[in-house]
């Protein structure tokens, strides 16, 4: 199974690539071109960087990528990658994929960024891997307009926000599974297993 990381040039892909590669029969690739990244069995939108810069890198292939997701291409978006699945962000200009409806806004908390391990409530993201404590490092969150897509919530101070959103084989998570130790790696493996069939 070919798993392709769309690299918007921001940061650390090593841990994520290695976490994906722990699943059986997976061949991980990194692709900087958003259109070419679609020639794959599973697309992964990684989690480091700023929305504006990433949206600019996405722009030339945005419509194609959105269509590919609508047509059933499995996709895992992590942190910023999840935010890119939504319409727009207060963090920066440009357009996300708009696969999920809603805006990305700053956390309504005193302590921002939200850094550290937090729990996921009402977790229904995957059948075979349950989330306990997961690692977060972000200042912005996705305000999903369709409540049905939210498959897990996390609370930071007074702000309760979507920890995970899912429609079909497209899953976005605000936390970093590749930084959430053994449970996070199992979550990544379980996602690949679930979308494979």
């Amino acid at each position, binding site marked *: 199974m070919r798993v392709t990381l769309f690299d918007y040039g*921001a*940061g*650390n892909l*090593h*841990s994520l690539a*290695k*976490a994906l590669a722990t699943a059986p029969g997976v061949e991980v690739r990194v692709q900087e071109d958003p259109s070419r990244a679609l020639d794959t069995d599973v697309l992964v939108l990684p989690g*480091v*960087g*700023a929305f504006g810069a990433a949206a600019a890198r996405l722009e030339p292939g945005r419509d194609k990528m959105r269509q590919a997701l609508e047509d059933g291409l499995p996709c895992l978006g992590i942190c910023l990658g999840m935010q890119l699945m939504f319409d727009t962000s207060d963090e920066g200009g440009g357009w996300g994929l708009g696969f999920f409806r809603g805006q990305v806004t700053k956390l309504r908390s*005193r*302590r*921002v*960024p*939200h*850094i*550290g*391990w*937090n*729990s996921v409530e009402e977790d229904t993201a995957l059948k075979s891997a349950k989330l306990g*404590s997961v*690692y977060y*490092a*972000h*200042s912005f969150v996705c305000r999903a307009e369709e409540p049905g897509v939210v498959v897990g919530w996390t*609370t*930071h101070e007074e702000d309760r926000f979507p920890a995970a959103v899912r429609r079909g084989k497209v899953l976005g998570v605000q936390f*970093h599974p*590749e*930084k*959430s*130790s*053994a449970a*996070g*790696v199992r979550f990544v493996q379980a996602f690949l297993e679930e979308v494979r069939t």
Partner: protein
Amino acid sequence: MLTRRLIVCLDVKGGRVVKGVQFEGLRDVGDPVELAMRYEEAGADEVTFLDISASNEERGTLWDLVHRTAERLFIPLTVGGGVRTVDDVGRALRAGADKVSLNSAAVARPEVLTECAERFGAQCVVASIDAKRDGDRWRVYTHGGKKATDLDAVTWARECVKRGAGEILLTSIDRDGARSGYDLELTRTIAEQVDVPVIASGGAGNAEHVRAALQEGKAEAALVAGILHDGVTTVGAIKALLQKSGLGIRSL
């Protein structure tokens, strides 16, 4: 609820883990990749590499080390010590660091914090502050605790946050390596003055000291090094005490 964090610090020099006492005298403690992985298995919430290399030649091994570690470590990795410019931060992140800490470079040119936060996000910018008691305040030191500045630690911490730091790594020079407990007054004073997480560092001699840093010191996280490397206590024993004390922590 956000849990408190136990962060294991590995001082690295020339690709090996070393441990110093009050910034002087070094002992070899082992291989960084192996140690980092062992601490992840034991339940550490994060690992920090602090590069204390004296020469560029020694420091040249850092990026390769970060790369090798990031491929095998599945908890956050912070790198500090060899980082001066925005390009250095970019290189550290590319190599596999999740966060980068800046110390002397930020004092010399505070704008670097803003530049890094704008380019990579505040969540990966850690302002590392080495502070030493001076009468009724704390003075900021740079260059591994050797060089005194005119900065007051509390004022400087606020300035760092204003300029874009997403976390403060606060080390008490007086306590570093002394194992007599964290400087609780310093930690609490700064934790109450900033809205970003403060990581207490310097002085851990036992699990009880860690608990005090998080409760009385109001730190979000505590950095521990020597007492773990020497086997004085374990990650599991510290976390058990924290849990018993009513602190929210991540259990395995």
